[in-house]
Every structure is written in structure tokens, then in C-alpha cells.
């Protein structure tokens, strides 16, 4: 290294002697927002909610260490200074803010929450299965070196650009029994045709599912298409030489090779499922009755409407646990794979 200017060289030396914390200072300064977000929001706020889910907070969060006397026993003892008797109160203090798992007991005893969890289960299972199957099938169709591939892809992906509110409202309109599909089919002469998923408490989840899939499958298709395109062309040549049918090549060879893409898709879809909120608000607001409630709606109502904060915290902690159950195996899989490579 040729450093002509001696000033630069000495500056470099000074730089090296700076204490550890001050080294790379600009980079650390630039990271302050990230560090603050991680510490205050992602770690701090999450822990806060988990801790307060064990309290009896209602309208406002209770002070954590609010205490009250549990018992007080006067104990007589001799005062050293003048020989007279005095009493000292020995008090047992109990922290009254914490109510143990009461909130969780109440949560799992609430019908609305049970319905929510059931709905999330059905919605999640169907959404996951159909997203993967439809997404992969469409990607495979688009992969067949067709004309107008871009046009097809553009049409299938555009709903993903729309908000859940817009999605929910459009499908609310199309599924409206008095004006939508049901009426059109009835006008064709099928007088007894019934298709009113949003007004039927047995099928309302599937009504939401239709809208959710319409919005989200385009993304899965794009991920899958990228995955299929990433597979070595020689695999195809080999399978053609062997005379394996195309569909069989996809099912038996391509899908197993695309395991990482499937895992990524599962994680992305799964994280979206647990968060489902806007879509339900726009389509049904949880109705008819409580038949299309979802955990996120329960949390929001308890925290911001019913003034029952701790109940909302408990419910959201359960949501967090659900995500952790999906996420931890994935992280394990990821890191395990990296170690092997």
C-alpha cells in the first residue's frame, strides 16, 4: 500500500487506537434504529405483553408490583432505649397484580375463542393445502413453455397487489345472495340454487377462504415457478430419455427437489394465516353471530373495545405461541441444513 500523504497514515494509526466501542462508529450509528426496534419493539413489547397477560389489567395496565397486605401480626418486643414494650407489625405482602393463569383459563372457557381457534384451524388447513396445490399446479402449467406466459402470470398475481379490505369487499359483493352468483344462477332457471356462504354460519369460513385464496395464490405460484425454473434442465432430459410422463416427473422428481421452496412457502403462508384480520373485518366482521371469528379479531376487540386488556394479551400470547410452533421447526431445519453443507 502506498500512502503518499503522511497525514492519512497517522490518522489511520489514531483510528486504530480508538476504544472498541468507538470503532466502526458510523456503522453503529446507522444501526441505531434497528437496534432500538429490536430491543424496544420486538423483544421489549413482546415480553411486556406476555408478562401482562398474567395480570388483571382491564382498562389500563395495572402496576406490576402493586402490593397489598396479606396479614399483619403485632409482635411485642422490648424497646432497648427506655425498657417499655412496643409492637412491631409483621406484614406479609402479596403482589395482587398477578392472577396466574386466570386469563388463560377464562380464554379457553370462552365460546367465542374456541370458535375462533376452530375457524383458524379450518381456514389454515384449507388455505395451506389449496395454496400449495393450486400454486404448484399453476406454476407447472406456466412452466410448459407456453405463449403469453407473462399475460397469464400478470392476471393471476394482480390480486396480491390489492389490500385485504378491497379483496374482502369485492367478494362480499360477488357472494351476496341477492345480487351475486346465487341470483345469476337462479335467473338461469335453477330456482332452488343456494350459494350464500357468507350468510350461512356453517360455511362462512369457506366464503372467506375463497377470497383469501384468490388474493394469495398468485404469490405462491410465483415462488413455485422460480423454484421449478431453478431445477437443472438435465433432469428433464433424463426423464424424457427414460420415457417418464411429464406429470410423473413433476410429482416424483421435481417436487422432492423443490423441498426448500415448499418449506419457504409453508412459512410465508403460515405466517399470513395467523395474522388474518382485515379480510374477515371487511367480509363478515366475524358474523353471522360469532361464526367467522378469528383469534386476531378476538384480541383486537378485547384490547380496544371491551376494555379487557389482559384477556387480549393472553389471547395474543397464544397467537405468538402458535407462530412459534410453526417457526421453530423451520429454523431448526434451516440451521441444520446449513451445518450439513
Amino acid at each position, binding site marked *: 500500500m502506498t500512502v503518499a500523504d503522511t497525514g492519512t497514515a497517522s490518522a489511520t494509526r489514531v483510528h486504530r487506537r480508538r476504544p472498541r466501542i468507538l470503532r466502526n462508529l458510523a456503522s453503529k450509528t446507522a444501526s441505531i434504529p434497528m437496534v432500538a426496534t429490536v430491543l424496544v419493539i420486538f423483544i421489549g413489547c413482546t415480553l411486556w405483553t406476555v408478562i401482562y397477560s398474567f395480570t388483571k389489567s382491564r382498562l389500563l395496565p395495572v402496576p406490576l408490583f402493586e402490593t397489598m397486605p396479606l396479614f399483619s401480626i403485632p409482635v411485642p418486643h422490648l424497646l432497648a432505649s427506655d425498657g417499655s414494650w412496643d409492637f412491631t407489625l409483621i406484614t406479609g405482602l402479596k403482589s395482587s397484580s398477578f392472577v396466574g393463569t386466570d386469563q388463560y383459563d377464562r380464554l379457553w372457557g370462552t365460546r367465542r375463542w374456541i370458535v375462533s381457534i376452530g375457524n383458524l384451524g379450518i381456514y389454515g388447513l384449507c388455505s395451506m393445502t389449496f395454496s400449495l396445490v393450486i400454486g404448484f399446479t399453476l406454476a407447472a402449467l406456466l412452466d410448459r413453455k407456453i405463449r403469453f406466459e407473462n399475460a397469464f402470470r400478470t392476471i393471476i398475481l394482480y390480486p396480491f397487489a390489492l389490500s385485504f379490505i378491497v379483496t374482502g369487499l369485492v367478494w362480499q*359483493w360477488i357472494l351476496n345472495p341477492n345480487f351475486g352468483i346465487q341470483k345469476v344462477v337462479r335467473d338461469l332457471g335453477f330456482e332452488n340454487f343456494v350459494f350464500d356462504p357468507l350468510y350461512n354460519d356453517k360455511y362462512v369460513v369457506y366464503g372467506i377462504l375463497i377470497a383469501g385464496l384468490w388474493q394469495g395464490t398468485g404469490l405462491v405460484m410465483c415462488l413455485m415457478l422460480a423454484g421449478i425454473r431453478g431445477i437443472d434442465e438435465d433432469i428433464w432430459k433424463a426423464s424424457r430419455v427414460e420415457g417418464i410422463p411429464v406429470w410423473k416427473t413433476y410429482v416424483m422428481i421435481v417436487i422432492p427437489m423443490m423441498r426448500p421452496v415448499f418449506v419457504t412457502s409453508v412459512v410465508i403462508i403460515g405466517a399470513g394465516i395467523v395474522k388474518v384480520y382485515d379480510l374477515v373485518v371487511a367480509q363478515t366482521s366475524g358474523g353471522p353471530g360469532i361464526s367467522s371469528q378469528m383469534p386476531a379479531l378476538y*384480541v383486537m376487540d378485547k384490547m380496544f373495545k371491551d376494555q379487557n386488556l389482559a384477556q387480549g394479551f393472553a389471547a395474543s400470547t397464544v397467537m405468538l405461541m402458535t407462530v412459534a410452533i410453526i417457526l421453530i421447526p423451520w429454523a431448526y431445519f434451516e440451521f441444520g441444513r446449513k451445518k450439513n453443507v
Partner: protein
Amino acid sequence: MSDATQFTPRGPRPRRIFSAPNIFLYGTLTVVAAYYALPLYVMITTSLKTMDEVRAGNIFSLPTQWTIEPWIKAWATACTGINCDGLSRGFWNSVRILIPSVILSISIASVNGYALANWRYKGAEFFFAVLMIGAFIPYQVMLYPIVLVLRAVGDFFGFQLYGTLGGLVIVHTIFGMPILTLLFRNYFSSLPEELFKAARVDGAGFWRIFFQVMLPMSLPIFVVAMILQVTGIWNDFLFGVIYTKPDIYPMTVQLNNIVNSVQGTKEYNVNMAATLLTGLVPLVIYFASGKLFVRGVAAGAVKG
């Protein structure tokens, strides 16, 4: 011309356009595309019909009597609660939320991604990992404590933060950070390291390299980030409901209030015009940006 080899068939046999597999392939794709396009078509046609025709007709038919009245009404006079100035209020609120949020979140995330890619320090990997995990925490877990944080920070500096535009901008910046940081970090890592080293040898520092070497090379990734943020923030509903007040509700919240209000007769044509108006901004961005949009949404799938 007399050469016989000229006439022997060469290359693969041309595929006939109307072969059975092709009919199946294009048939399926056309049906699927029609299904995906249907809601947009229904939105457009319904919004251009008169209410009489909506009541009498078929939602899939074209309007017999075209009218733009519903659009005008949705934009200027539709009611939410006591306000009857239409969606225009929500539109401008969304614009006012969008611009500072996009600028702030992208500036912070790009510098942050650059620091993580080129100026690693001890602990950087840990914070980045937690940031990535944080992207998967359900928002509901953090919503309430963030209200308290915004209040406390506002009180400390002596101004209102919760319930104002500023608060919402901060929230959007926070929740946009994981995906944007990932995007920028991966991009800056993929640039040739020699450029960075050459600039270092020439004596450029952190900021100078960022502004004079990195920025001019990274226009595409900024466009991708912008697409991601503009559609994401425009489509947001949850944060708008929680962190703003009715006066400054973004467009999505106002739309939901207009359409799902229980008072008055339902004007479906106005509702659809309003829905389409709200979806117009992301739709225009989507159709204009083409492959860059795909790159943006697939960014989540790219592993760091």
C-alpha cells in the same frame, strides 16, 4: 437447391398448436385467468351501473346505461359517520401517510442494510437475526405496548405522537424494517467487494462510500423497495385503525367504514366505485412495474 439434404426434416418436430395437450393447457389457463380477472371485471361494471340496473340485473352483465355518477359520489359525497366528503379525505390522508413513511423507512433500511453488508460490527448478526424473527411475530402481540411507547416518547419530547400522523409513520417504519433491511443487505452484499475496497483505499468513509459509490449503483433495488412499501403502506388497515384518529384515517379504513356502515340504504354501485378507487393506486403500480413487483414480493422468499 438440388441438394437433397436441404429437404430432409431437421430439428425437433414442430408442435401442433391444436394438439390435445395444448388445448388442455391453454384451456385450463384461460379458465383460471378468467376466474382471477372476474372480480376486477365485476367491480368495474358494477361501479358504472345505475342503482336500478344493479337491483334488476346480473352482476356479470355489462351496464346498459353507463354512468360515472357512482364514482363522483364515492369520491366526493359518500358518508362515513358525520363526514360526508367521500373518499377524497381518505385518499389525501393516505397520501400524507404514504410519502413520509416510504421515505423514512427506505432511508433507514438502506443505510442499515449497507452497514450490515459492508461494515459489520460485533453483535450485528444477532440484531439482524432477531429483526428477521420479529417479522413473524403477530402484530397483535406488539400493538398495545407500542401505544404506550409512542405516548411515552411523545411525552418526553413534548408533543403528541400517538393518534397522529407522526406516530403512524414511525410504526410503518418499524414494521417495514425487517423485509427492507433484508432486501438492501442482500443487494449490497451481492455487489463486487472490490468496489468497496477500492473506495476504502482511496480514503472514503462510511457515508461517502454510501452516497457516492453504493447509491448510484442501486437504483433498481430502491425501485423494488419503493414498490413494496407503497403497496404495503397503502393497503394497511390495522395500523391505520389503531394509531390514527377518525380525522386522519387512511383510505382503507374509510372505505371499510363507508361500505360496511349499517345506516342508510346500501348503494352497491357507489361501494364498488369506492373499492376500486382504493385499489387503484396499488393496481397502477402493479401493472406499471411488471417484473419488479414480482421481484419485490419474492424478496421475502430470498434467504439471507
